[in-house]
């Protein structure tokens, strides 16, 4: 990798590292104060009952529903960091980097789908403890999470395409 693309890759690496630190920090700082700060932590919100004391197990349930999406995202970001380092080093046309790219695509698609389901389950779960606002379970359309899932599918397919290019190159080399 040379020239402009190398500089883009450098800038990209820094941006991904910053996001990989900020994303879990933001999620855990918000979720811990919302769900794990005490039995009255749901009371100030419209979906919480004014006088309800929520047991720790119930709040832990709410806290853990969105965790699969966060774990998939964090794994994806770590793979992206590793992949970008390989890219900058020039090790981009290898089986390792192509496999990593496919993995990033799969993890992103999983993160998007887990996120989509996670928000819907969280709403349904939390409101089921409030008789005034209980709702039936319903998947909500979230264009942001869908975008992540589709971008993941794109990267997954690109990984498969690059693997094919590698196979063709390998076959040609064998003939030579």
């Amino acid at each position, binding site marked *: 990798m040379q020239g402009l693309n190398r500089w*883009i890759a450098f800038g*990209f690496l820094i941006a991904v590292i910053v996001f990989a630190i900020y994303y879990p920090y933001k999620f855990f700082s918000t979720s811990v104060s919302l769900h794990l700060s005490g039995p009255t932590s749901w009371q100030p919100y419209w979906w919480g009952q004014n006088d309800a004391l929520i047991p720790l197990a119930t709040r832990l349930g709410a806290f853990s529903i969105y965790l699969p999406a966060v774990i998939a995202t964090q794994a994806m970001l770590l793979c992206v960091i590793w992949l970008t380092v390989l890219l900058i080093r020039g090790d981009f046309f290898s089986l390792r980097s192509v496999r990593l790219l496919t993995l990033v695509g799969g993890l992103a698609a999983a993160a998007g789908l887990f996120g989509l389901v996670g928000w819907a389950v969280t709403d349904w779960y939390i409101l089921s403890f409030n008789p005034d606002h209980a709702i039936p379970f319903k998947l909500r359309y979230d264009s942001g999470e869908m975008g992540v899932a589709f971008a*993941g599918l*794109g*990267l997954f397919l690109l990984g*498969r*395409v690059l693997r*094919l290019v590698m196979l063709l190159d390998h076959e040609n080399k064998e003939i030579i």
Partner: protein
Amino acid sequence: MHADRATRSVRLLALVFMFPVAIQGVYYTQRGLFRAYRFAFSELDRWNMHRLVDPGTQIETAPRIGYFLIWSVDVLLSTAAFGIGLFILNRLRRGRIVDDVTARALGWLGGTLAIARTFDQVFQAVNRTLITWFNVAGPMPPQWDYDPSDYKTLLLGILLYLFAGVMRQAILVERENQGFV
């Protein structure tokens, strides 16, 4: 032998992915444009009675057109990404895989995704300034709204752009070796 199997797998995957991408592209576009149209034109009270707008304020037509145009750009940028995605999937489905046009289109897809998500963040930030433009105290300052899914898609778009470059280089190498064969 392995390459044949890999080609068939890519063509099949492209065909399968075409359906959800097409459905999502149409649904996202009509939903986004309809939302902007409803807020700007068809349900006037949505803006007039907005919680951030001074009571009794009547919003004229010009800012409504401006609002609709701004959000249309935001929606249509993503629509363009879906269109490019479908173009690439169709080429892959037809077997044009190790191909410079496909690799360039992948770069365009990554770039368009990154630009669309950046614009979305910026438009989200200036949205309340636009809505409160006619308040007596003046418009509210822009406010950054943290949306992690926008950032994730932005990063994936840049990665797609970088690897489209890798694919173009790989195709060049493959062509050179093909020349020897």
